[in-house]
Every structure is written in C-alpha cells, then in structure tokens.
C-alpha cells in the first residue's frame, strides 16, 4: 500500500481538492462550485476523489485551506488547517523554486505574495472591498449577457480597450453602462474591464511593491487571457500561468498535510458522518455574539463566534 495525502481548498466560489503521493505527483484532482454550502460541496468533492483514487493507496494526511478551512477541518478531521496564503506559497514554491512574485485573484479576494529564496518576504491582501476580483468580473459578465469564461477571448480581439475607472466597482459599473450606451463595441468594453481589473489590483494590492520575475499568476481569474495580457503589458514582464494554477492552494495544503503526518490513516467515506451546525445569539451580555455550534455525529466538536470565550 502506498501513502497519499488529501488537500482541500474551500473558496467562496469554488472548492478544489487534490490527492498527492509522496513525490508530490497529483493522483486525483477535482474542481467544483461551492454554491454557498461548503459542507455539501466537500462531501461531493471527497466522494468524487474517492472514486478517482486508484486502488493501492491509503490516505495518511488531510489538510484544509480557504475561507471555510476551519469548518471543513472539523468535518474531515484534518491534521493541518492553514490559511490560503501559506498554502499557495508552499504549493507554488514546490513547482517553481525560483518564483519571486505570486499574483492571485480569486472569487472575492486578491493577494500578492513576494518570495525570496523560497520564503515569503511580504504579502498583501485586498482590504475592505472586493473590487477587481472574480466576483466583479462575473457580475459584469451577467450584465453584458455573456459567460465569464468567454471574457478572455473577447478581450484579446480588441485593439482599443475603453477606459474604465479602476478604483471602485460601483464607479466601474456606471462607467461601463455609460460606455455601452454610448455605442462602444462589446469587445472593447470587455478588454477595458480586464484592464481595469489589472489596474485595480496593482493600485490596491500591489501598492508600489517591487514586482520581480519570475511572476506566477494564479486563482480563478488567471484563466482569463485578457487579464494575463494586460498584466504582461503593464508590468513589461512575462507572466506564467501554471496549468494547475487553480489547484495550487489545494496542492500546497496537501504538501503540508504530508509534512505533518501523524501516522493516522484516514477514510474518505463521509456518508455515515452526520455533520451539522447550529447558530444562535447569546444574550448574556450587550455584545449579543452570534455563535455557531458544530456537531459531528450529534456530538458537539467546536463552537466559535464568542467574544468572551465562554463557548
């Protein structure tokens, strides 16, 4: 029997899972939509991965990352629960040891990670707003009556991207409506949108950081060829998009699970596991904390949300 490790990255929009072996080779992978119910998405994901996993492997470690990492960590009894920045960096460095900059644009957040000699030296994340992320692009796609997947192709056709405000989604949207009504071509507007995502990212997240190559671009938006084009144009450097760029977080956390293995063997059968959460408001003090209790097989395993630490 050979050992393998499961890494799950539960993002706001999509849920990604990979199983790797001791040499970091991907044995099984899957990418599905989260659809605002991470537990159901992960059940589905793990079932698919279990079917894809060739016989002769045993799972020796599970890691979770992404915004639902804590919750899913409890569901899967993961041995590693880590934030997505660390996971992305570890995944990327494993495949590109000399990487210096990671650009990442996801569904609702975007980040930049600077690396030197395989160690993170600085990073930044978008602060309050989700402007210039995947969510922005898909809502604009809906407005234009297109599938966001086709955005890249459209943008590449344009030689003359329209100028769209890069600062704020609300302004960008009114700019977009105005330009559309003024009669600009769809491809030029889409190209302008892609460019505004890049400008927004460099202004809000990049903020004067020195972007040195090799540059790796990841996250869902990295599948958009228009955005890649404008990154390269504005940065004046080549931007590498790994084939499995959307899986990098999952791969990173699987590697961490391997490094932190305890010898315990995991089962991927979740069907018998009963898992639910219960939210309630505590009225013991004026804070009225919204608490969440997490039950696994009808036994309370954790609860969070309390300010005072009573729960």
């Amino acid at each position, binding site marked *: 029997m050979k050992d393998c490790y499961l890494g799950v990255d539960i993002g706001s929009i999509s849920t990604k899972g990979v199983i790797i072996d001791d040499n970091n080779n991907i044995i099984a992978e899957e990418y599905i939509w989260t659809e605002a119910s991470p537990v159901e998405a992960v059940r589905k994901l793990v079932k698919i991965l279990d079917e894809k996993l060739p016989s002769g492997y045993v799972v020796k470690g599970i890691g979770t990352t992404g915004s639902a990492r804590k919750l899913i960590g409890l569901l899967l009894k993961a041995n590693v629960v*880590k*934030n997505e920045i660390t996971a992305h960096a570890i995944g990327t460095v494993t495949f590109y040891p000399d990487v210096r900059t990671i650009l990442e644009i996801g569904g609702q957040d975007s980040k930049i990670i600077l690396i030197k000699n395989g160690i993170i030296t600085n990073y930044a994340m978008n*602060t309050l707003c989700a402007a210039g992320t995947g969510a922005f692009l898909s809502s604009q796609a809906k407005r234009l009556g297109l599938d966001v997947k086709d955005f890249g192709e459209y943008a590449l056709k344009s030689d003359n991207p329209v100028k769209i405000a890069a600062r704020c989604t609300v302004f960008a949207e009114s700019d977009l409506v105005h330009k559309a009504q003024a009669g600009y071509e769809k491809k030029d507007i889409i190209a302008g949108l892609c460019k505004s995502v890049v400008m927004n990212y460099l202004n809000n997240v990049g903020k004067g950081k020195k972007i040195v190559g090799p540059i790796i671009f990841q996250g869902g938006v990295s599948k958009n060829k228009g955005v890649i084009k404008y990154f390269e144009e504005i940065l004046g450097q080549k931007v590498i998009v790994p084939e499995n760029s959307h899986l990098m977080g999952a791969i990173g956390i699987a590697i961490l699970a391997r490094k932190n293995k305890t010898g315990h063997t995991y089962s991927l059968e979740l069907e018998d596991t009963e898992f639910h959460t219960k939210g309630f408001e505590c009225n013991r*003090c004026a*804070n*009225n904390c919204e608490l969440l209790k997490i039950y696994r097989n009808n036994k309370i395993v954790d609860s969070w949300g309390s300010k005072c630490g009573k729960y």
Partner: protein
Amino acid sequence: MNKVGIPRGIFYYYYKDIWTNFFDALDVPYIISPKTNKKIMKLGVKHSNDEMCLSMKVYMGHLFYLKDKCDYLLVPRIDNFKCNNQTCTNFLALYDIVSNVVDNPILNYNIDLEKNKNLKKGLYDIGFKLGKSKKEIKKAYKYALKEYKDRRKAGIKKNIKNLESEKIKILIVSHPYNTYDEMIGADIIKYLESNDIKLIYSDKFSSKEVNKLSLKYSKDIYFKYNKDNIGALKYSEDKIDGVIFLSSFPCGPDSIANELVMRKINLPYLNLIVDDSSGFAGMETRLESFIDMLGERHE
C-alpha cells in the same frame, strides 16, 4: 450632584489617568462608560453621520450611553501642539458635534498651544466650574499630573524593553483609541498575543523623542499623532520583525501617513482597516498568514 460623564473613546485613551486622578483628588464623582460592546456600537452608528470614522461612531455610542446617567459630559477640544503638530479635524470638531446633539452641560477645555491654551489652564477652568477653590485645584492638578507622568514613563520603559525580546516582535502602528478599543483592536491584540508574539505599541513612545524622527520619512505630515506613530516606527525599525498598521475606516490622517510609510519601509507589513461590519474571519486569515511568514523569516 455634579456627576461627570467620561465617554470611553478618542480623548479618553490619552487623558484617562489625568482626568480620573484629578476628579478623585477634587472629590468629584464621575462615571466612565463601559468597554465598547455591540449595543454601544449600534447606538453610535445610529447617532452618527455615515461619513464619520468608526472611532467617532464608537465615541458617539459612549456619549449616548452616558447622557442620562450624568450631569456633565467631559469633551475637550484638541487643536494643536505647536510646531506643525495639528490633530485630526475630528479632535477639533467633537465638542461642537456633541453640544449639538445632547442637552447636557459640557465640561470643555481647549488645547491650542499656538494660542497658549494648555491642559493646565483647561483643568483649572473645569475645577472652577465645579465650584472648587484655587488651592484645591492646584493640589489636585499637581497630583494628577505626577501620577500620569509616572505611569506614562513606566509604560514607555516597558514598551521599549520589549524591543529587546527574543520572540517575534511586531510594532502596532495605531492610535490608542483604536488599539485598545474592545470592538476595534482588542480581538487583534488578543489573537497576536495568544500566538506568542511580542507586541510593541506605537503610542507608548516618548513623543519628544520620536516626533522629530518622523521627518526622516516625510517633512510634510503635520498630524501630531501620525508623526508620533511613524516616528516610533523609525525608532524601532531595525529591532522588529514586522509592522501592523491598524486603522479605523475611513481615517483620513492614517490614509496619508500610513500609506506613505508603507512604500518607504523595508519590513513586512500588514494593513488592517476595521469597519463595524467586519467579522473576524477575514482578519484571522490575514493575521495567521502574517505570523506564519514572520515565523519563517525569524528562523
């Protein structure tokens, strides 16, 4: 009864020791609003203009919590500390805002060193207003000031000593009314401390020493508290592992000073902006990854 109400916000974090000791010595009863909680926050948001910063909204919450529980409200106006040391316009405006929204009589004093109005004059005026004699006030003021200075010195000493720690050290560049507020900075501080990080606070440095150090970053900033903050950063630059800029949304002076310094320092930093809507999950991701990174660098 002459009960004085002290809102636990903005000015409180600079003057609490002086005020409480002064009133204690004068035998004047006072009430301080409790630590900020959701109820106070809601009260503040309800009674604020939407463009005020979160710290102001919190202040308004404390004010409305207190208004029926005391006779006087203590609201100073702080304008400047001379030599290009202005305060944020909110520090000037609060007295006028407060006097427009509540009916309570206000105990007010001005700090405007350019016009020679200082803390001593201010507290004397307040003492007279409360019907105390000059002799009593003199004694109380002397006591309050000494107590304050001793405590402040001890705080600074401890803070500077932490710079020598072997642990991972993070400088919190923030205003005290954000750092120590229960709904703004407290969770962040708690999280960092539970992860065995040594914290150094930018407000616990001697202003005399660090204020002029800020000139090394920029000669154009004229906000006193921001100059102190970034001066503290200059002072500790070589001794810390990272910086966390913590501000309340949408702070004007911070958005100039902090953003400017971020582009000039050669240290890992994290910029956290707190709003009343923020849950802690997003904060936690940023803090956790920041600590991970500093841990790797530290080794």
